[in-house]
């Protein structure tokens, strides 16, 4: 092998101009799809080769591989350049999507080469979900096939609005114009309901390069652009900046108590310092105080940028919520209709529970009704009891808590979700939201006696008793209050039973002897039980020093309802904080029977949640509790569903 002595360009003005032009290039993401053997990989190989993206060493490897695995005789088999997996080369098929990169003087391109086999439809959908344009390949000898239709429908569902109809292998039909015209008419007839903004038909031979990078002399009857000319100039700007502001909160950045930033990627619109924004789920309004960036705050940021916002007010916002324009708000609902593409061997079944994930939100969801399945050949709406792998249908869904969204047709980011199997964690389906459902149309009342399940179902939650135990001054009430605020903000029904407050009423006849302490706990546990029976999420904030009484409280509740939260702050720290001045008085002997001083505290051995408070902010711990509750609800549904039967 020879060594290449590269010529380096001097950092001249022309070099800088060149670099500036490079940086200003726009980006087009597209995919190639169509039936097996229509020549998708060959086309990408041709594009890479003709735009000089294949390096000498890669070409040498390709020549070697072509002789070994190739299907093109003595010629280079470009498919081997993209079929990168061993199994693909051995079987001569594409299994998974491959991403390749090339550039012309006008644009940069990311290509997803997707598999044609029906069994790998999910991999085709993966490639399509991030693409702006699809090249649908058709073998001129075969015409429009079932997979051509399936891929076109999926591309349309996933929001692709621009199609190149590549009528490939035109050399094998002697460059016959009538065959080309026939296919173009067939496809137009089929695609008229798919909502494509542009469909550009091009006669092509990917193998020999006709009409790929330059117009071919062998198709004199074709007057349109070559494929590359079209890709360089087609306008696919969806103008996400023109849409209302949508900011899915991805991560709350809180390095210290003085900074609370909401990090995420702007889904649509523009935001400027001073703009009013609204928290989608609660309707609370605030203003943008700062748009924080390393190297200095920004005055304005636009769709597509990953930013960090600081708001003027202390509003409750966590991951999964949206900050939005007050003038045009998204929908917030727990019932909606959606298109679903199913990916899993195990069919989608109405009534089974799945984890639903939007870009940043996660909630458990059930398909309440499968309205119909779409026949991919003729768009017929067919009645169905389930959706099998690779099938497409329209469903009604119900989520445990409301989510904020826009219809997918209006916003490709805030209208999309995936469904995840609770047991295998596999991504089993992709959803595109159509519209929300009015509850009246959808709540199916059943003539049950009113019970705990009914009461809690009405509140869209599972009851729970969060039992906070810990020394006086450990932070129980502070954390409990923040936790309740969070639950309230996410639409849950709650109540706090606080040690001090209860002693003003229900327990005002009780003192601080051991016997009174036991009775104190017993009464509170009974009240908590009633409230749980009413379907509430109860937060009990009591020192509750004795393990035995906490056990009694636990045994009063239903299985899994009692959640012991150990607020673990060392005695020294509590005494140092001493928010009510009680430690000073207890240590001087003025107060008797004070827990930790002259009355024991029996720390929980196996609490459900152990909060070591030193060095953590109350906000952070309240968030941890909320996260725990969400996870429990998801796990419990799995149990309710008997593992999905």
């Amino acid at each position: 092998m020879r060594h290449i002595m590269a010529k380096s360009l001097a950092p001249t003005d022309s070099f800088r101009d060149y670099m500036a032009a490079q940086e200003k290039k726009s980006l087009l993401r597209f995919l190639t799809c169509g039936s097996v053997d229509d020549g998708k990989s060959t086309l990408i190989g041709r594009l890479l080769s003709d735009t000089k993206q294949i390096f000498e060493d890669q070409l040498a490897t390709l020549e070697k591989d072509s002789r070994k695995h190739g299907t093109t005789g003595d010629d280079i088999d470009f498919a081997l350049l993209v079929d990168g997996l061993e199994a693909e080369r051995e079987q001569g098929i594409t299994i998974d999507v491959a991403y390749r990169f090339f550039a012309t003087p006008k644009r940069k391109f990311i290509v997803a080469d997707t598999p044609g086999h029906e069994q790998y439809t999910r991999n085709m959908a993966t490639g399509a979900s991030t693409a702006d344009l699809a090249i649908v390949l058709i073998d001129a000898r075969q015409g429009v096939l079932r997979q051509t239709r399936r891929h076109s429908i999926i591309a349309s569902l996933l929001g692709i609005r621009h199609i190149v109809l590549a009528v490939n292998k035109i050399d094998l039909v002697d460059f016959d114009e009538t065959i080309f015209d026939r296919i173009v008419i067939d496809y137009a007839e089929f695609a008229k309901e798919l909502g494509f903004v542009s469909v550009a038909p091009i006669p092509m031979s990917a193998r020999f390069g006709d009409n790929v990078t330059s117009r071919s002399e062998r198709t004199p009857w074709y007057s349109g652009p070559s494929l590359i000319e079209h890709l360089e100039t087609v306008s696919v700007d969806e103008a996400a900046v023109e849409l209302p502001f949508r900011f899915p909160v991805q991560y709350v950045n809180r390095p210290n108590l003085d900074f609370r930033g909401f990090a995420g990627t702007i889904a649509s619109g523009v935001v400027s310092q001073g703009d009013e924004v609204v928290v989608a789920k609660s309707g609370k309004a605030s203003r943008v105080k700062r748009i924080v960036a390393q190297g200095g705050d920004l005055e304005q940021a636009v769709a597509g940028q990953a930013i960090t916002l600081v708001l003027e007010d202390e509003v409750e916002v966590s991951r999964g919520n949206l900050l939005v324009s007050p003038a045009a708000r998204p929908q917030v609902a727990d019932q909606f209709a959606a298109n679903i593409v199913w990916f899993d061997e195990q069919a989608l079944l109405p009534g089974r529970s799945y984890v639903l994930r939007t870009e940043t939100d996660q909630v458990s969801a059930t398909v309440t009704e499968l309205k119909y399945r779409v026949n991919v050949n003729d768009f017929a709406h067919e009645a169905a009891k389930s959706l099998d792998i690779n099938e497409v249908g329209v469903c009604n869904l119900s989520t445990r808590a409301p989510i904020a969204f826009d219809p997918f047709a209006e916003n490709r980011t805030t209208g999309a979700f995936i469904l995840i199997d609770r047991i295998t964690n596999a991504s089993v389906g992709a959803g595109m939201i159509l519209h929300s459902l009015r509850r009246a149309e959808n709540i199916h009342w059943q003539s049950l006696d009113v019970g705990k399940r009914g009461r809690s179902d009405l509140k869209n939650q599972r009851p729970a008793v969060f039992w906070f135990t810990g020394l006086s001054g450990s932070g129980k009430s502070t954390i409990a209050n923040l936790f309740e605020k969070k639950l309230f903000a996410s639409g849950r029904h709650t109540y706090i039973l606080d040690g001090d407050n209860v002693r003003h009423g229900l327990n005002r006849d009780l003192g601080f002897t051991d016997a009174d302490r036991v009775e104190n706990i017993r009464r509170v546990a009974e009240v908590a039980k009633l409230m749980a029976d009413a379907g509430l999420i109860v937060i009990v904030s009591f020192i509750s020093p004795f393990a035995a009484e906490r056990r009694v409280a636990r045994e009063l509740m239903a299985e899994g309802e009692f959640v012991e939260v150990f607020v673990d702050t060392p005695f020294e720290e509590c005494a140092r904080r001493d928010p009510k001045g009680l430690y000073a008085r207890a240590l001087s002997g003025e107060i008797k029977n004070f827990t930790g001083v002259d009355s024991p505290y029996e720390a929980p051995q196996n609490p459900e949640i152990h909060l070591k408070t030193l060095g953590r902010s109350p906000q952070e711990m309240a968030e941890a509790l909320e996260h725990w509750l969400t996870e429990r609800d998801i796990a419990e549904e799995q149990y309710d569903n008997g593992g999905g039967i």
Partner: protein
Amino acid sequence: MNIALTHLQRLEAESIHIFREVAASFSKPVMLYSVGKDSSVLMHLAMKAFYPAKPPFPFLHVDTTWKFREMIAFRDQMAQKLGFDLLVHVNEDGVREGINPFDHGSNTHTHVMKTVALRQALDKYGFDAAFGGARRDEEKSRAKERIFSFRNAQHAWDPKNQRPEMWKVFNTRIAPGESIRVFPLSNWTELDIWQYILQEDIPIVPLYFAKERPVVERDGMLIMKDDDRMQLRPGEAIEDRLVRFRTLGCYPLTGAIESDADTLEAIVGEMLTARTSERQGRLIDRDEAGSMEKKKREGYF
């Protein structure tokens, strides 16, 4: 209003989004820091993603003990300058057995000192998500990999059964013992990396810049003698040549290219006229067909 983001702005935003998604969804992430140019870009993006906070995860360097000395010096200097939490892991079993690229070959050396060492480190700390700097344009099995790439409890990749990955809606759910490898630079090309380093003025190991260095010509590559462990074969001679590196790994396995590019501008200029791929300088990719996929299935990054 029409404010189009540039190509690099779009790539930067996508990477930052991925970093934050992991920080929000996993309990124990780690960033694999290999000291090369891609790691430098990755680290720069991580600092941006969490500013004004520090990245909420440690950085792990799997040290094969055969890295260039300048890489180790640069690593320690960056850790001190940026104040991140640096973990260094060496496969001590491999060291005890004296595994080295000269006597055991690149395959065995890479497997023991890199793949096995990485698995050891991930198990030792119980990381549930690990960032890597791999790009899809590097190699054709990488071109097939998801951004969030699932690994089973044995750290193995199953290329025939990857999770669908729709939009920016990532599936971060795993069972105990399983993990996800995360590739924030998936959609960057080598040229993008250099343009970004130039644009953002990101520090990189000096080995990327041309300089007179002692090299020996071997198996069609220029191997630099970085220390006295270098074993010469009969007939080989060390000579000083003006060279630089396009990619960095273990010094006995990494080929230099002859070049006079000693500034970032010159490197980018050279890139624009390059006729060979960067992995051409990596001996380990050429051992056998499909060798990268095989290594990845075994747990290599």
